[in-house]
């Protein structure tokens, strides 16, 4: 019984650790200013 409890505890702790790693950040924040545009031919002289 004690082994089962220990295993369950280990699983819960592992799940919490994984969730912490997974949700630590919300992901990239989009750029607030500016943007990309293709270089035109005159710019490549």
């Amino acid at each position: 019984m004690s082994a089962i409890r220990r295993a369950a505890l280990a699983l819960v702790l592992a799940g919490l650790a994984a969730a912490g790693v997974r949700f630590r950040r919300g992901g990239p924040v989009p750029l607030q200013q500016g943007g990309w545009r293709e270089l035109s031919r005159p710019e490549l002289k």
Partner: protein
Amino acid sequence: MRAVVVGAGAVGVRAARHLLFLGDVEALVVIDPRARRLEAVVESLGPPATAGTNAAGAFDGADVVVLCAPTGHQEAAESALERGASVVSVADDVATVRSLLSLDPEARERGRHVVVGAGFAPGLSCLLAAHAARSFEAVEEIHVAKVGTGGPACAQQHHRAVRGPAVESRGGVWQQRRGGSGRALIWFPDPICGVDCYRAALADPVLLALAFPGAERVSARVGASRRDRLTARLPMMRRPHPEGALGAIRVEVRGRQGVVHHDRVLGAVDRPAAAAGAVAAVAARWAVDGRLVRPGAAGLATLAEPGPFLAALAERGVKAAVFEGAGATSSTPVVTISEE
């Protein structure tokens, strides 16, 4: 032009096809140890492409040798130089790039070119840096970031690169940093957008520091996932993919114009193997046509006029982009999250 392409992988096939499109190719010999793959590639390319078996023999009479195989670049380059051919190498690991650069005296003596790192990054990254540098009187910093891989050899190199050590130039002194450290959120051109990038064993700083000896800092980072970083020190867990998805490069050059310090950010999005093939083919064409700046062994930032080269690449579908808009010149669109 008589050309030899060594390696019929994701990059080699593209390089051979672009060479044929660029025209004026009398003979194109493709070499690869995989007989069935080689036969299929030569058949798809059509004349004047032929299959070669013996690399050393195939180099006889060649004007240029394009090295796209995963290994053996230095030996092949030495052999090609001995036979009077110029060399274009898509090698992207630090040791190979340094060994190819050591061929500079011999290449100069023979009046031939050894274009080192003529792929996606290094290669296209060096051209973008050189083009951005033209906006400045003095270049102070260059920071390259790339995401994505080409064929299986490129994926394996990415795996090794994340393991490190990363090389960075600071004030002309080479520093080694731990691979997988220095996380920075880098914003690439659409549709790649924001990717976490890390220090890695990348060859771009080696070539760019040579081209811009006055630059105070030259660094490179690569996009990597948590799994990439976690497994970098282990053998690859599964076979690398035949070819990766869309990749991107972002090059930030900081410098001085008069008394004003500002930066310029250029980038490109493409399949890395496709872009690398185009860069290698145009470099080979330019080497034969005498359009490179000087003989010797160096990267494209040293050997090529970046504007016309990027224009030639644009004709082959590889297009460069510039980041601009509010905040683009005074601050950078990079958000550094942590310095590990």
